[in-house]
């Protein structure tokens, strides 16, 4: 309990939290002991990482999450980057078993001592991570990838806790959560870009676990089949194309379909709602998000026009700097490679087919060049 109190010192509004802990029902004991442990972790982290963040309040802030393409602080003029940026693997290529020694003081050591992994996820991205019945039992591809990482660390299921994180806000979003040690990794349909890795936040990405592209989603044609339009075909037609506010997709639409064609919405999913209401004529965003939209509406489909730009999704782990060694990215890369090679029921292919409701066309390849951002 005292540890919980220490945690509340950084999270100013939790004064009353301890009052009811003595009277809680059994069902919440696990949550609370987990909370206590998080507090212990937060305490250690607070001594280092959180200090320079000032009064950042985890999870209670004002982030506006732009699904898929966040408007996070990024490098102003990123330099091109390729496979070398994410390729670090665990030394020797064989992962340590649950009882094998790991470097003391490292992230992995910390997670093991805590007995569970804390993964930051989104809860509103259909097929990838969502909580359909508001019961805090998330499901989807991102969720399963995170569970696979926990299984790689602990050798069995059940050692994971999910936290809902937002992407964009620099003080409370995913980056701050990672830096403050509130989450160990984020599996959040986050595109690996050079700008994000080179920017002030120094996001540390794994190799891609999913490769997507940007595509156009439109209502089915009169023949009941997907339409053929690409962005350029919509130029001058007066049709509105919806994209996430301030995302790179907005620039792409402006370039290819004209300034007037853009309609910006707070979240990518707003675009589906607007399309269903007839306020826009098309949605342009990551193929992965469009899959989720198709699954929620049988009358829309991605057009058959060629995709625009590849979007590799990576697992984000903690900030890397010379004085704060991060052994999690190499571990995750090796675990990911094992997962992708696994043809069993818990392997990447099966998870993909199960969660995304369609078998994969191929395995996620590490691109020679990542998007600049």
């Amino acid at each position, binding site marked *: 309990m005292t540890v919980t109190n220490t945690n509340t010192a950084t999270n100013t509004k*939790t004064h009353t939290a301890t009052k*009811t802990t003595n009277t809680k029902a059994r069902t919440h004991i696990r949550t609370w002991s987990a909370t206590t442990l*998080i507090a212990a972790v937060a305490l250690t982290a607070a001594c280092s990482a959180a200090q320079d963040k000032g009064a950042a309040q985890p999870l*209670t802030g004002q982030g506006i999450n732009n699904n898929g393409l966040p408007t996070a602080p990024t490098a102003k003029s990123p330099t091109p980057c390729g496979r070398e940026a994410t390729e670090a693997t665990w030394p020797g290529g064989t992962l340590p078993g649950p009882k094998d020694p790991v470097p003391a003081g490292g992230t992995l050591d910390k997670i093991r001592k805590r007995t569970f992994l804390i993964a930051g996820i989104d809860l509103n*991205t259909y097929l990838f991570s969502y909580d359909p019945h508001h019961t805090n039992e998330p499901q989807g591809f991102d969720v399963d990838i995170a569970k696979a990482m926990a299984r790689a660390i602990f050798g069995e299921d059940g050692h994971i806790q999910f936290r809902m994180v937002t992407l964009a806000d620099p003080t409370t979003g995913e980056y701050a959560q990672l830096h403050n040690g509130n989450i160990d990794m984020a599996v959040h349909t986050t595109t690996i870009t050079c700008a994000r890795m080179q920017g002030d936040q120094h996001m540390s990405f794994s190799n891609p676990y999913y490769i997507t592209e940007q595509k156009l989603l439109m209502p089915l044609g009169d023949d009941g089949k997907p339409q053929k339009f690409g962005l350029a075909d919509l130029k001058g037609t007066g049709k*509105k194309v919806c994209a996430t506010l301030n995302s790179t997709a907005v620039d792409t639409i402006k370039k290819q379909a004209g300034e007037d064609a853009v309609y910006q919405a707070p979240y990518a*999913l*707003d675009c589906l709602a607007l399309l269903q209401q007839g306020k826009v004529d098309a949605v342009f965003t990551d193929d992965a998000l469009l899959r989720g939209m198709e699954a929620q509406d049988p009358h829309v489909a991605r057009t058959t026009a060629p995709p625009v730009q590849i979007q590799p999704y990576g697992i984000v782990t903690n900030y890397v700097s010379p004085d704060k060694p991060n052994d999690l990215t190499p571990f995750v890369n090796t675990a990911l490679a094992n997962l992708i090679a696994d043809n069993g029921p818990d392997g990447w292919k099966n998870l993909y087919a199960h969660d995304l409701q369609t078998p994969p066309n191929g395995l996620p390849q590490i691109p020679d060049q990542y998007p600049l951002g």
Partner: protein
Amino acid sequence: MTLATGNPSTSAAPAPTGPVGAAGSGAVAQQGRATPPRAPRTDRRLSRTRAVLAVGALLFGAAGITSTQIRADGADDVRAHSGVLLKQAEELYHSLSDADATAATIYLHVGEAPKALAAQYDTDLKDAQDLLLAATNGAGDDTNAKDLLTQIAQQLPTYVKLNATAAANNLVGYPVGIRYLTQASTLMQTGVPAQGSTPAQPGILQLVQKLTDAEAANLAAAEDTATQVPWLMAGAGALMLAALIVIQVRESRRTNRLFSLGLLGATAALVVSLLWAVAAAALQDSHIHNAKKRGSAQVSVLASARILSLQARTDEMLTLVGRGTADDRELDYTGGTDSSGARVPSTEGRLKDALNTASGLATDSRGRDLIAKALANENAWHTQHTQLRTFDAQNAYQKAVDSALGEHDFAAPKESANADFNALQTNLKDAIDHAEDTFTTEAKAAADALTGLQIGLGVLAVAMAAAVVVGLGRRLAEYH
């Protein structure tokens, strides 16, 4: 009526003889008596005076009735029109923001909406529709109000449709439902900014706020009219009184009689008229003042407190529903600086301020008692809210939802954000009803204060004119 008959005689009678009469003296009067074709000077003067005074008395009556009518119209406007329209606008605001809070609360439930909440949402919308109709009927030729009401009526179906689509998607577990719910709430609360060729859409509640402001201004104007000082009547009364006194003093000097009973009676009638008018006006003023101070002023503060409480409740719910995509709503609750650096006022803080203001305005013990209870509810709710935010931050989402919905599975079941919010709503409603009752009673008393005054003034004016005619008629008879 009196004006029409009075005017010609005043202008006709004195015109030809005015200059001659001005030079009048004892000698001239005697000379006048010797020349039969022209009426004697005193005679003519008296006859003229009598006509002027009689007409003046009727004019005073007319002025009194007119002034009273203006104030009576104002008082009636306060009681039956402006007051009602303002109340309707405030109730419309309440119904709509309650619908918004309820829709978000329903969304947080798994599966079908709980019966009580579904019924509350339906009642809110039905009330809103009824109020829109009633307000449109009552708006008369107020084009500003009618325009606002039309805009509200046009947007309401869109709002209902967005919420229905949200609920349908929620039922099958599609996250797009949350976007519909958020879009609905945005349409209700803040509106949609313009984008490209798509024009901006004002928030429905913003329109209702404009309507409320307009109706409040109308009420203030009606209150001003009802308490307007009746200068016309006061001026006419003063002139009449001065004239009567001067004539009586002159007549008592000219004759050996100390009093003319007729003129004295007329003076008495005038004094009674004036005293009655002053007393009625003072009574009316005090009721109008009370209607405002103990009634409408409190209702408006309490109504805004209730609206703020509903906005805070919507914030609480949408933050939970949004799972990180609606954290701007929590910022609206706590206040602070948004991601663009703009200052966001705290809805909860404004709610507390409004309740404190209402507490200072309360004029009786029941009002004070209800507001004190509401303040206690607000404090308790805020504590629960802070706690449920902590639960959510600590990954105890279900606990946060339990507190928000009042579905506890841990000890002290009465303590929940839901219970405190509901208690706050009950006490605020009672406090508003109490102040409304006071307003209605006082506004009615204000309108009643003028009862009979107009007829009384008319009768007295006629009596006054008759007394003058009869009183001076006796004197005139002495010359024939």
